[in-house]
């Protein structure tokens, strides 16, 4: 396989305008949603301004400074938020989270793996308290609302868009010659059966380009135009960021210290890893399946079965099979809104989503190698 061939395959792909229209449509959609969600909200901008002048972390001086601000409803809200700032872990521990979750979901009760996970989480909570991360202002009382809008809506939408382009580009490229009816003419050439390797690399380059474009533009827009400075600079473990897990309020805690900006960046990186994985799986399947429809339906059916399996296993209290059933890229993508947290019943080890992604990167590389090898000895009937 030569660089020239990868370049030529990429040229083929760049002529497929639908990828550009799709990427452009995604960018517009994301910007529109982000704009509608954040643009006209005054409080984040107000807290951002306050944090710029008085620092992110809330101190006794913060309240004094806030009281000197010109009178407004926003000022009242800010002062109320500042007074409400207290250590959310003062009266609770990681063990409490585990106990609360166990009561809601008997499946995880008395599981040593889970117990171990929450022991490790307590260490992180201790550090978090020591560093006083919970004292970050972020956007005060609207912090959790912003967190949900960004990570449960916009970033999830971004994941769907990136994964769709990954699968689309893989399937289009893998079947390009077949759909043109040129597969046989190509396969009998010197490069012939190795053509799919260059197709894989070319489509991966395109996918990564789309990932950079859609993700980069969306994140840049959030950073530059949505007045989220304070949220992005603050720790996500701010005392105002309390999420609900099985209707139980849990202060946000992540395995590593995360500011809003760092979390956005890490989500984007993990989306890139998932794009690599989904693209690779789609490509490897395409090398075995007879048509693009077969490949797409196989992937769709596989995703549905994974959800079904997880649902059945949790209902039947099969802890280990359930824990195992989560070790796939589909469930990982689905659980984006709780990435880097303890993930409740959805993980058994710290940073599970990252480990799953790394595992699947290895599996994907193996699948691609096996698929390319298989293609060398595949009957090309039509």
């Amino acid at each position, binding site marked *: 396989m030569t660089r020239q*061939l990868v370049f030529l395959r990429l040229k083929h792909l760049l*002529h497929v305008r639908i990828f550009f229209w799709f990427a452009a449509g995604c960018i517009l959609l994301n910007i529109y949603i982000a704009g509608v969600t954040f643009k006209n909200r005054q409080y984040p901008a107000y807290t951002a301004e306050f944090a710029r002048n008085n620092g992110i972390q809330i101190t006794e001086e913060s309240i004094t400074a806030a009281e000197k601000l010109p009178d407004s409803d926003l000022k009242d809200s800010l002062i109320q938020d500042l007074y409400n700032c207290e250590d959310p872990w003062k009266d609770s521990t990681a063990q409490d989270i585990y106990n609360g979750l166990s009561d809601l979901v008997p499946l995880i009760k008395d599981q040593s793996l889970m117990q171990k996970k929450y022991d490790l989480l307590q260490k992180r909570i201790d550090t978090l308290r020591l560093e006083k991360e919970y004292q970050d202002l972020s956007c005060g009382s609207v912090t959790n609302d912003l967190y949900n809008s960004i990570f449960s809506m916009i970033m999830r939408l971004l994941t769907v868009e990136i994964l769709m382009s990954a699968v689309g580009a893989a399937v289009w490229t893998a079947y390009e010659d077949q759909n*043109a009816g040129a597969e046989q*003419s190509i*396969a009998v*050439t*010197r*490069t*012939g059966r190795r053509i799919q390797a260059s197709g894989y690399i070319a489509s991966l380059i395109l996918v990564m380009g789309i990932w950079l474009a859609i993700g980069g533009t969306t994140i840049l827009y959030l950073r530059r135009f949505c007045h989220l400075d304070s949220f992005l600079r603050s720790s996500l473990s701010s005392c105002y960021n309390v999420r609900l897990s099985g209707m139980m309020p849990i202060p946000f805690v992540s395995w590593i210290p995360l500011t809003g900006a760092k979390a956005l960046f890490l989500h984007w990186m993990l989306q890139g890893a998932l794009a690599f994985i989904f693209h690779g799986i789609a490509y490897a399947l395409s090398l075995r399946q007879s048509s693009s429809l077969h490949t797409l339906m196989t992937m769709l059916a596989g995703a549905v079965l994974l959800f079904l399996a997880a649902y059945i296993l949790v209902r039947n209290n099969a802890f280990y099979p359930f824990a195992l059933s989560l070790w796939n890229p589909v469930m990982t993508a689905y659980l984006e809104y709780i990435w880097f947290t303890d993930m409740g019943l959805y993980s058994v080890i710290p940073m599970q989503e990252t480990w799953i992604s790394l595992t699947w990167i290895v599996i994907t590389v193996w699948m691609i190698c096996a698929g390319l090898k298989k293609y060398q000895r595949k009957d090309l*009937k039509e």
Partner: protein
Amino acid sequence: MLRIEHVTKRYGKTEVLKDINLEMGPGIYGIIAPNGAGKTTLMKLIATLLFPTEGLIYWNEQEIVSLGADYRSILGYMPQKPGYYRNYTAFDFLSYIAVLQGIPHETASEKIRFLLERLNLDPDDPKKLKSYSGGMLQRTAIAQALLNDPQLLLLDEPTAGLDPGERVNFRNMLHDFSKEKIILLSTHIVSDIETLADRIIFLKDHAVYANDTPANIRASLNGKIYAVPQSAPLPDHAHILSEQPSENGTMLRVYSDDPLDGFKMLEPTLEDVYLMIYGAKK
């Protein structure tokens, strides 16, 4: 030298080719069989597009699959339904194939121009392949198969879609090209290879039925082909091969193992052989 040894191809329980044994040196070989007899499958097996269920194929005593790219670099193949990229010009398409064949850019441009001109196509034609006629596409596909100057050329129904003038041009071109090379040409149009092929291979019931020179194959029917008026009574053992209108009414071309006294004996043609093998009216 191409050697096919006990090659069988099955899809599930369906046997598409059974126990094929062939040996080919330089020359033009015609495979004749009706549609569905396994011609294309045999071509694809030689082209390594399909893999035998049983048996092996050798090129110069080396198994072709293990030869891989080295084998494909001496191979030219024109599929039965040649595909193309709709938005390419013929020149672009052949340039792409040249890259896949590992032909250096400078050599490739020259070669593409030569082939396109030889096949009455304009190398500078800016028209995309999607606007080409069937004949033009067919000629582009022929050029693609000849691009790497192959030692083994496989042409699956190459003349389908060509007009009579183009067919003659194609035959002449093939004749010029054939020196020291193996050309395997599959067709169900007998006239395409009657004058061209050094040997003819008939496939029947998914196996090789006959493999000989055209002269020997025709000779097998010597003294057995007659011209008989339609109105004349025919013995039961006679087979009608074809009908032709003439000044004296419709004349039948008839095959008979026993002499038909009083009727004109004719020179057998390959078409007679074809009709006898694949079924003639009794």
